[in-house]
């Protein structure tokens, strides 16, 4: 009799692993959003020297559950001027691709919805579909703030998709596979990909912050400028689905991609002995990146739209192209060893980080000269 993983009959294991994967996905999407909102509020409170939620439950742990109950019990309000079907369809269009992308996230050795051989391509594809829902939401709301938010979002997401995908491609070049499982397997032991390819990781993480509408790139829903951007007209559970579930779900997906591609996915001490331990390692790593994203949110101010675009098109995309050129050349020149790629990638990181203050200083100098020349009291926006 053939024995599958964990000594279970494969005939039982095949449906069982699906159930576990779907259960984990739903658990992480629904409860993960609640937990992440709580963490977000608590962490920002700590950084800003406040208390944060502390009334409901111990340490305010039940606060977001209470908020969710409030959202569910709210009346379904819709402005008369909104565009019927589109307005209703938009939250679904944002939510469905996010939920579908959980199919290929490898939680542990054999705990994955399906091992697609184009897993990474599938994830980027679904990530690019979110934009459609956001644009439709902005359009259907028939509200100028929502429309502006939707347009900003379309421009931002389409632009930042390019460096994001280019950064992923360099990892695929080194690993030689698009399957999330194979990518994880290739990083057994302490030598994870981030030590070999830190530069694409940097590019991906910055672009991912923009793709998930996180500060400092949260222009589509800039509260101080656009009320709530494309979410302005939504309330109740539609708002909850769009903002809480989809946004935090996307954050989790992006962090899971980072974990899988650069930090060894489920691999960690003791995984070979107890495969289920992989779920713990995977979740811990994913939440570590979510915490970093929240830390960034509490630290950095929001960019202006022209700064956002010029940073992407003049900074990130050239950097990503240089990175892919270097990685591809070195992978072709040294097919057996990864050391030259690692050295080149670290050099690029140093150049990128050291180059930012230099470019910034030059920009400031140009700005000041221009302000003096025009003798205008207000400093015009530099492109």
């Amino acid at each position, binding site marked *: 009799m053939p024995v599958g993983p964990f000594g279970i009959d494969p005939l039982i294991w095949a449906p069982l692993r699906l159930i576990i994967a779907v259960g984990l996905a739903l658990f992480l999407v629904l409860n993960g959003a609640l937990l992440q909102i709580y963490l977000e509020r608590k962490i920002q409170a700590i950084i800003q020297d406040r208390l944060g939620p502390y009334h409901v439950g111990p340490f305010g742990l039940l606060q977001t559950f209470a908020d969710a109950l409030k959202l569910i019990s709210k009346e379904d309000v819709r402005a008369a001027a909104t565009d019927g079907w589109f307005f209703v369809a938009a939250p679904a269009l944002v939510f469905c691709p996010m939920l579908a992308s959980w199919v290929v996230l490898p939680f542990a050795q054999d705990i994955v919805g399906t091992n697609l051989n184009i897993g990474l391509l599938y994830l980027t594809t679904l990530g690019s*579909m979110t934009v459609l829902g956001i644009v439709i939401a902005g359009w259907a709301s028939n509200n100028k703030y929502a429309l502006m938010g939707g347009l900003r979002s379309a421009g931002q*997401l389409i632009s930042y998709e390019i460096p994001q995908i280019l950064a992923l491609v360099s990892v695929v070049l080194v690993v030689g596979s698009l399957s999330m499982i194979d990518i994880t397997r290739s990083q057994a032991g302490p030598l994870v990909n981030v030590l070999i390819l830190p530069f694409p990781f940097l590019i991906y993480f910055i672009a991912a912050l923009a793709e998930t509408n996180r500060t400092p790139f949260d222009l589509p829903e800039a509260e101080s400028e656009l009320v709530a951007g494309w979410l302005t007209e939504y309330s109740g559970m539609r708002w909850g689905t769009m903002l809480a579930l989809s946004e935090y779900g996307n954050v989790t997906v992006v962090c899971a991609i980072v974990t899988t591609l650069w930090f060894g996915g489920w691999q960690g001490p003791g995984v070979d002995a107890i495969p289920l331990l992989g779920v713990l390692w995977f979740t811990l790593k994913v939440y570590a990146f979510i915490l970093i994203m929240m830390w960034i949110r509490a630290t950095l101010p929001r960019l202006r739209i022209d700064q956002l675009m010029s940073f992407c098109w003049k900074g990130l995309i050239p950097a990503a192209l240089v990175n892919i050129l270097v990685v591809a050349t070195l992978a072709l020149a040294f097919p057996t060893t990864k050391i030259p790629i690692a050295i080149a990638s670290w050099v690029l990181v140093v150049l990128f980080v050291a180059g930012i203050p230099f470019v910034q200083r030059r920009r400031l100098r140009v700005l000041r000269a221009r302000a003096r020349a025009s003798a205008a009291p207000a400093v015009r926006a530099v492109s």
Partner: protein
Amino acid sequence: MTFDFVEPVVFALLAIGVIAGGAAVVLLSRITAAALLMAFTFLSMAGMFVLLGAETLAAFQVLIYVGAITVLILYGVMFTKFSDRPRALFFQRQTPLAVVFVVAVAIPVALFSFSFTSAPPRPGGGDLSALATSVFTDFAFPFEIASVLLLAAMVGAIVLTGRDDPEEAARRRRR
């Protein structure tokens, strides 16, 4: 118990999706609805690719057509000034001519395709490395020609939409 009946059913649903979606894109007068239905048509076609075993092509179909092109079309629609005629028929004003063309093209194509006797496509086209190798070796020249065409289109779009704004020119001179 076999599941052989699933594939034709899925194919029929997808085919209905493609044809109905495409017809609605042309016939609807609401341009945003047409754009959204175009995305739906592209998604159905991606489903057809999956059915044929070409998952890679399906993924690229969704990535490029749904994720980028439809969004760019919506972007263009929202930036176009059409508040005075939000439901005007922009493109479909040549119905008789269109009917003649469709009949002239569709009937020979249909006759030709029904007399097709090649073997049905084999599944297993999801191999990305084989696809990439053929694109960058055997079909490198068409690939490059296509990118030059896109570049020319982009330059043309920039030239066509570049305005001679006197205020902007004055500001640039001040700099």
